């Protein structure tokens, strides 16, 4: 089916579509911005957990799925070790602190993470001496460099950065991965109220097979609460709230897109009723005319999305690095798809009008 007519109109009368294109371009930018913030916040909150190369994470049952409240003793750990299907168990502990960076006036926000089983992209813990750590690359923005010795927290515990890892931030702070002994040292020196004994960790990461979570919680007699890694990501403070808040704003914006496309193209259709009457009289079907409206809406949306994306990328580059905006390719794909769906649905509002154009009205009218 040839759709030359609507495409020619777009090419020859671009100014007719300018307002709608500009409005949709700004809405595209807004959608990408909102999505980019959501992604930035999500990725910056959850990196350390998403990076875990494990099947489940074991908390103490009193912790309500919070690392800071969770404590796992050696007894519980040996019970977990003995569960059928468990292949490997490692301790995990986090502490959030400020750190003095050599040569920098402002302290950096860091998360000291003690580990045994290496997360994805993090070197085996045996390669680290006490007092050494590999740092998340985002700390580079705060002046951290490889070889720097950071003074962690009020106790100024020394940790030397010996390498970089990517995408492992924890609650918007750059993680420094250290062995469990170093983590305990930092924790006990800076948080004496929450000190941990030598054989205690906050949580366990477990690799294995079968229904691990249920098996572990049964084996410990209810002393543990075990989550899959995906569940543990969503259990991090604020993550679910962020997701739902931002998604609500994003979907509301998409409703605005739908309304803009719907309104614009139904006004355009209204203007063209006379022309549609003539075209129907000379043999155009309603389906073809309607397809033309949808095609124009889609083309306008594509052009607007390209312009809006360019604007969003330029704005993102101009933003200070502290803003957690992260423009991921998947966000572009999602936004583009959502815009296309909204524009097709929006233009569908004109279907009834197009169907009701009476070809007989074309003849005998003198206007």
């Amino acid at each position: 089916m040839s759709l030359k007519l609507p495409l020619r109109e777009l090419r020859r009368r671009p100014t007719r579509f300018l307002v709608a294109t500009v409005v949709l371009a700004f809405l595209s930018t807004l959608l990408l911005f909102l999505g980019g913030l959501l992604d930035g916040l999500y990725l910056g909150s959850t990196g350390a957990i998403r990076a875990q190369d494990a099947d489940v994470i074991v908390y103490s049952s009193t912790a309500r799925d919070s690392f800071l409240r969770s404590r796992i003793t050696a007894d519980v750990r040996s019970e977990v070790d003995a569960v059928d299907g468990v292949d490997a168990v490692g301790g995990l502990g986090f502490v959030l602190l400020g750190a003095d960076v050599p040569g920098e006036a402002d302290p950096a926000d860091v998360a000291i993470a003690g580990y045994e089983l290496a997360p994805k992209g993090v070197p085996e813990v045996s390669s680290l001496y006490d007092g050494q750590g590999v740092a998340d690359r985002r700390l580079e923005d705060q002046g951290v460099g490889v070889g720097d010795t950071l003074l962690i927290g009020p106790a100024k515990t020394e940790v030397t950065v010996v390498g970089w890892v990517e995408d492992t931030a924890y609650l918007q702070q750059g993680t420094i991965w250290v062995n469990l002994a170093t983590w305990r040292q930092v924790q006990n020196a800076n948080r004496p109220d929450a000190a941990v004994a030598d054989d205690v960790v906050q949580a366990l990461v477990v690799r294995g097979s079968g229904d691990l979570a249920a098996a572990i919680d049964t084996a410990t007699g209810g002393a543990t609460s075990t989550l899959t890694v995906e569940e543990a990501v969503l259990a991090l403070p604020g993550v679910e709230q962020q997701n739902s808040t931002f998604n609500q704003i994003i979907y509301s914006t998409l409703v605005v897109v739908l309304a803009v496309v719907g309104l614009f193209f139904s006004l355009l259709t209204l203007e063209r009723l006379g022309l549609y009457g003539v075209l129907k009289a000379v043999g155009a079907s309603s389906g073809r005319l309607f397809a033309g409206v949808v095609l124009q809406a889609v083309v306008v949306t594509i052009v607007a999305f390209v312009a809006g994306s360019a604007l969003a990328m330029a704005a993102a580059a101009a933003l200070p690095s502290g803003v957690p905006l992260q423009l991921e390719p998947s966000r572009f794909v999602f936004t583009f798809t959502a815009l296309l769906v909204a524009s097709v649905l929006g233009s569908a509002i004109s279907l009834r009008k197009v169907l009701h154009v009476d070809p007989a009205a074309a003849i005998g009218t003198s206007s």
Partner: protein
Amino acid sequence: MTVLDMRDVRKVYRSGDAEVVALDHATLAVDHGEIVALLGPSGSGKTTLLSIAGGLLAPTEGSVVVDGEDITGHDARRLTAFRREHVGFVFQSVNLVPFLTAEENLLVVDELGGGKGGRAARERARALLDELGLAARGSNMPSQLSGGERQRVAIGRALFNNPGLVLFDEPTSALDTQLGEQVMELIRREMKARDTAAVIVTHDTRMTHYADRVVRIVDGRLTADPVPA
């Protein structure tokens, strides 16, 4: 042979409780290549008759056969295809697509019929424009054409698919007398050259001598003039 055969056609418009009988027992047959002028006062049912003859409107009663095809019971979809292939329309007001050139306005008909607008179609459009005296105007937009030129483009569009029947609703009413006569002359020449039948609605008696036959309509009823010698 008959191209248009309307029998006992009645058309009643209903708007709320009111009923308007726009056509009453109208019977009209038009032969191949014959030019019929339909003459009548305002509101007499001329446009209604043309609309029914061209498949734009369904009759309340009676039958309509065009090019041997009985279209009386056709649904909207079949009528659309029928109009595309069998009839040409020239409307009272000029109804060209404003963002297409003269040549493209002719090709619209081809594209609507699924044509690719290929070389053959373009050559045919140029030849038609040439015949209509618009050889130099093919790439002009409607806004760059005079009223008479636009009406000639509309005639070209109506002829493009080689229909057996072309229906004209007051084709000259927007033109001055001299231009109107030129357009009527052109219509006659083109119809005769193609052996195409035409029904031309007018209420201007000065235009009727371009027709082979005059049919009068008053209050929805047809009365034929004697066929001129």
